């Protein structure tokens, strides 16, 4: 199977986890690799384009920060921060075409943002007014999946359908390192390989599944597991937006060319808590968090763009202002979100008439009426 693994290192710098096969195109100090197969896949990205990626990352980080603040202030019930995973999400999402489709987990705010979710839509679930933020068909992305691993099968099914339709669409399924242990994730790989589904399994290995280190789920590595199922599998530096873009482009191209599924392990780090309800100091050291700060995905791209001169203080201030506007919009849109009427809980449970539930709705309304009369 090892021939299926992508081996382009893309850099001479010492690799993460001693793995010589991790794709990297930007070193932590911001040196860009320009030769090699993967570098070629992103050779079209000039400074302006890179500045676009940089802006995306800064904006989503700012949005994430604002959402965290909104949670602290009681405006959101919960928020799962993406801090540290900006490159993995922006780099991969920017590789997608309009007709592609995404099935993600709950932390992929960056992906949703790139797909076109509004700030209001980013908030709806976490404010507790809906269990889905947006219309999946409008932005080409399913709503956040809470059941770990379940969406990998949905992605595979959708991809099989796209293939049957003769569409050029590819599908990306996002999930975490923890999700690789769930039976569904393995079954998804089986189905994807059997049917040659145009699906990309994109694993953000952020080192932790709540309090459990990745070594508990996959002591011998994640990418190899996928390779064992017969999927072309690659490990990428998930904090390197260029490298992530490159490997995702490759996988999507393969999918669209009818060459079937593939697997990407993006090695990254969850800098913040699992969610705003989590206290990571209970299970990991400050040293570990510090060590990963040195690999910050945003700082890395900034360093490179500073080097080329594309990112000046002025430009950076503009980017920051853009981010600030997004954060302000998030806050405004979030706090403006109305609460749906109670009766709406009966809507859409069924697509077709359902007399038993309608009778319950009648009872609900009678109850509410009687109750209001009493007052």
């Amino acid at each position, binding site marked *: 199977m090892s021939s299926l693994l992508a081996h382009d290192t893309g850099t001479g710098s010492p690799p993460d986890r001693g793995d010589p096969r991790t794709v990297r195109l930007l070193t932590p100090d911001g040196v860009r690799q320009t030769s090699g197969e993967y570098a070629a896949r992103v050779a079209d990205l000039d400074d302006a384009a890179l500045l676009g990626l940089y802006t995306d990352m800064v904006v989503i980080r700012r949005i994430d920060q604002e959402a965290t603040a909104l949670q602290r202030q009681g405006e959101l019930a919960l928020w799962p921060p993406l801090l540290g995973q900006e490159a993995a999400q922006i780099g991969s999402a920017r590789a997608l075409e309009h007709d592609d489709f995404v099935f993600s987990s709950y932390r992929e705010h960056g992906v949703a943002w790139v797909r076109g979710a509004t700030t209001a839509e980013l908030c709806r679930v976490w404010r507790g007014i809906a269990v889905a933020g947006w219309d999946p068909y409008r932005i080409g992305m399913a709503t956040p999946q809470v059941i770990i691993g379940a969406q990998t099968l*949905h*992605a595979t*099914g959708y991809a099989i359908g796209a293939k*049957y339709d003769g569409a050029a669409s590819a599908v990306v399924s996002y999930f975490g390192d923890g999700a690789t242990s769930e039976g569904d994730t393995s079954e998804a790989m089986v*189905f994807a390989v059997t049917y040659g589904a145009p699906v990309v399994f994109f694993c953000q290995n952020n080192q932790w599944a709540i309090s459990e280190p990745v070594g508990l789920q996959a002591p011998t590595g994640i990418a190899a597991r996928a390779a064992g199922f017969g999927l072309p599998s690659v490990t990428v530096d998930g904090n390197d937006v260029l490298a992530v873009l490159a490997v995702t482009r490759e996988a999507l191209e393969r999918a669209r060319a009818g060459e079937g599924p593939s697997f990407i392990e993006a090695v990254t780090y969850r800098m913040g808590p699992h969610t705003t309800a989590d206290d990571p100091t209970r299970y990991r050291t400050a040293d570990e968090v510090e060590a990963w700060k040195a690999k910050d995905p945003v700082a890395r791209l900034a360093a490179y763009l500073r080097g080329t001169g594309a990112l000046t203080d002025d430009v950076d201030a503009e980017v920051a202002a853009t981010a600030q506007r997004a954060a302000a919009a998030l806050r405004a849109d979030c706090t403006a979100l109305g609460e749906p009427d109670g009766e709406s809980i009966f809507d859409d449970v069924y697509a077709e008439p*359902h007399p038993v539930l309608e009778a319950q709705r009648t009872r609900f309304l009678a109850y509410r009426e009687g109750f209001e009369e009493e007052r």
Partner: protein
Amino acid sequence: MSATMTLGGAIGAGLRQAMTADPKVLLLGEDIGKLGGVYRVTDGLQRDFGPQRVMDTPLAESGILGTAVGLAYRGYRPVCEIQFDGFVYPAFDQIVSQVSRMHARTKGAVTMPITIRIPVGGGIGSAEHHSDSPEAYFAHTPGLRVMSVADPQSAYSLIQEAVACDDPVLFFEPKRRYHLKGEVATDGAPAAGGMSRARVLRHGTDVTVLTFGGLVQVALDAAEAASEEGLSLEVIDLVSLSPIDWPAVTESVRRTGRAVVVHEAAQTGGIGAELAAGITERCFFHLEHAVVRVTGWDIPYPPAKLERHHLPDLDRVLDGVDAALGRPSSYGEQAFA
């Protein structure tokens, strides 16, 4: 037009009809292609519609249902076969957390027109895990519809309605009735009433017997036997287990004042519990006796040679009827802990 078909054959014919009518209908399951399913229900369909529309899947039920969710997301209308009742549980999470909730979750943006066909129940001398009756699990799950068919004509019509329904439908096929033959009209509109309507199969005045699927014939036989003793039983095939057709049930029980519910599944928390509760809510002042449950015992399905001690049969139905009439029966005080 009409033809003689077995119940299994009628489902196959109905599926063929549904696939012809709508190119988005596709089937997936284990061994449903070349083999035509272990009960041959899908016999010939892969040959005629090709392997894309009749997909033999890897041996993984969660995979089948999860893949179906994705296909539905893409606009397909998947019909999943679970090979036997006892093998639906690995798919439980996908059914209960995904299939059933997707339409509500997305406020109607995404429909899940998924039909889940499951050969169900015992009475066929089969191996462990091949005779379960899991319908109550699904009837308790909001967002799902649950039905069971008992004769070839219903099977033919209702499988098409199930496939055409924009909601997910659990479609239970009683194994012990697969080979039952009957005349099936294949043209015209589907049988009156549709998939959520109960059917009064025998009119009666003394006791209403409510059942479905594999035990419908048992109930009819019991009614016939009872009539020889001068008792008039009304027999209702519920057809739909979720939603239950309450108007039909209520009308009958208010008339007879007595009801017996018959099913194979364990008694505690079975469909009979909901029927007893719901009937009593609706007919309390018409009832002469508590609703009587004639069901499988609260045990794992027993080995084949002992299944007759577990399954309601004609005599146990009559015992329940006796109980409902306040006559001597096994339902004495001591029979209730």
